């Protein structure tokens, strides 16, 4: 049989068995085309929720988006009664997983709610219910359902601060939340039955998990030692056929690729510029020459006009520092610079070094604007941007070289201690 039977003869949604004790009670949303503004999906998504039965009660793991609550409750009712619910686990508090929670708790007031330590303030913010009782949990905490156990794994920032995974050792199922998920809707549900969803899996990682690679690697340290027969994510196909492949893929995508080319001491510095009359380009070349004087800095110079944004984003992700050159036109930095800067939200820029320069004709605000943006993106910008009015003089070219030299020294930690007065800032 290829299709999973999702409805009974009366057309009522029903639960789908993962194992004898574990059922999918989620919902299919085949009409969704845009998720969270930033993601597209060509065939919708699923909101996956699960119920697991132990000898001393059942647990519900996650719920669904509010508009799909009736499917969720109908599926739940096909395998359990509300009075049997001992435990509710939320692996992630985003509304597409918590939409049915208030009603579920109303129907099962005896249930104990388990959320991650970091989810506490968010739960109140989302549900606006001050009196909601819950138990915050961390790695090492577990809850017993008699002959079935749920172990909690603290896996923050995948992709919200609150995210966690829940593991059933007896079932060998990892309820992973958004980790290993994707926006793909196919009523056959299981990865060995559904259509080709590999692109959705990769795309989801690129936009949802990629900014949090270091957290993915920390989570994998907890996940990889587990004996896992099935991954039950909160979106997309349930991964029961060779689940390890997906775990390995996450490790692969979260590990840096460039480091293998560099010695341990080397750092990478990228200079991007765009120039209308060649003045900002001349500044860029001088900054490049200055930065090249510092040993162990691998400097690259790129004209933004000669490339697409996406590969530049890839480069920046693995660089230690970036310097951006923009002219000021009509009181603003130019669009190619903003296009690049608005595409960097998918990578982690925290603690990278930033610097900005540019030639201008009248006012020169562009450099300051880009500096502010870099700070907003959490780069450190320790050296004030360099601006030159129109064509750089020989003296100004030397200033550019010095600017590149100082930034490269800063990158290598060679600038030495500095003392500043607050009034001079």
């Amino acid at each position, binding site marked *: 049989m290829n299709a999973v039977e999702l409805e009974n003869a009366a057309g009522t949604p029903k639960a789908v068995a993962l194992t004898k004790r574990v059922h999918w009670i989620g919902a299919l949303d085949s009409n969704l085309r845009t998720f969270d503004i930033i993601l597209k999906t060509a065939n919708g998504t699923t909101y996956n929720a699960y119920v697991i039965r132990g000898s001393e009660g059942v647990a519900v793991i996650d719920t669904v988006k509010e508009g799909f609550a009736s499917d969720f409750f109908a599926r739940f009712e096909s395998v359990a009664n509300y009075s049997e619910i001992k435990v509710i686990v939320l692996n992630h508090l985003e509304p597409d997983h918590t939409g049915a929670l208030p009603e579920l708790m109303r129907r099962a007031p005896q249930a104990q709610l388990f959320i991650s*330590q*970091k989810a*506490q*303030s968010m739960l109140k913010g989302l549900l606006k219910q001050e009196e909601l009782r819950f138990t915050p949990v*961390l790695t090492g905490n577990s809850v017993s359902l008699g002959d079935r156990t749920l172990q909690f794994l603290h896996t923050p920032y995948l992709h919200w*601060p609150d995210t966690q995974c829940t593991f059933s050792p007896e079932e060998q199922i990892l309820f992973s939340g958004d980790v290993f998920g994707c926006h793909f809707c196919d009523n056959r549900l299981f990865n060995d039955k559904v259509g080709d969803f590999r692109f959705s899996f990769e795309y989801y990682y690129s936009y949802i998990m990629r900014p949090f690679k270091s957290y993915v690697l920390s989570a994998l340290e907890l996940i990889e030692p587990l004996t896992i027969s099935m991954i039950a994510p909160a979106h997309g196909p349930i991964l029961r056929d060779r689940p390890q492949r997906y775990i390995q893929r996450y490790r692969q995508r979260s590990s840096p690729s460039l480091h293998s080319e560099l010695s341990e001491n080397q750092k990478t510095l990228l200079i991007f510029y765009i120039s209308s009359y060649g003045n900002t380009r001349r500044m860029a070349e001088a900054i490049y020459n200055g930065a090249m004087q510092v040993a162990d800095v691998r400097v690259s110079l790129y004209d933004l006009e000669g490339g697409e944004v996406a590969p530049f984003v890839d480069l920046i992700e693995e660089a230690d520092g970036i310097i951006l050159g923009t002219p000021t036109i009509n009181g603003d930095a130019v669009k190619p610079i903003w296009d690049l800067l608005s595409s960097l939200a998918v990578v982690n820029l*925290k*603690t990278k070094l930033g610097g900005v320069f540019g030639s201008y004709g009248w006012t020169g605000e562009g450099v300051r604007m880009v500096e502010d943006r870099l*700070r907003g993106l*959490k*780069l*450190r*910008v*320790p*050296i004030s941007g360099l601006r030159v009015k129109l064509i750089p003089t020989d003296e100004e070219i030397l200033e550019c070289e010095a600017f590149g030299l100082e930034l490269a020294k*800063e990158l290598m*930690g060679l*600038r*030495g*201690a*500095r*003392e*500043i*007065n*607050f009034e001079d*800032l």
Partner: protein
Amino acid sequence: MAKATITFEDINVTVTVPAGTRVIEVSEKVGSAITYGCREGDCGTCIMKITDGWNNLSEPSVLEDKVLRENMAGKHNRLACQAQVLGGKISVKPV
């Protein structure tokens, strides 16, 4: 006016400031990598490590204490948007 100094270890910069200055007022201007989210003591983004001069800081408020706890902050961690240097010397770095 009473003075104090804040050293940002990640960039090796020491700033002399008026006593009572919050770390947030200085760190971005000098380019330290301490990063900010809400800037009002709620999100926990700006947790920093105090490496020296812990006792020269204002006491954390009830709200800051709660945010630090929720974010499982380590020993001698504070929110840079809340912590004020009251005098003497402190050294900080991003976590």
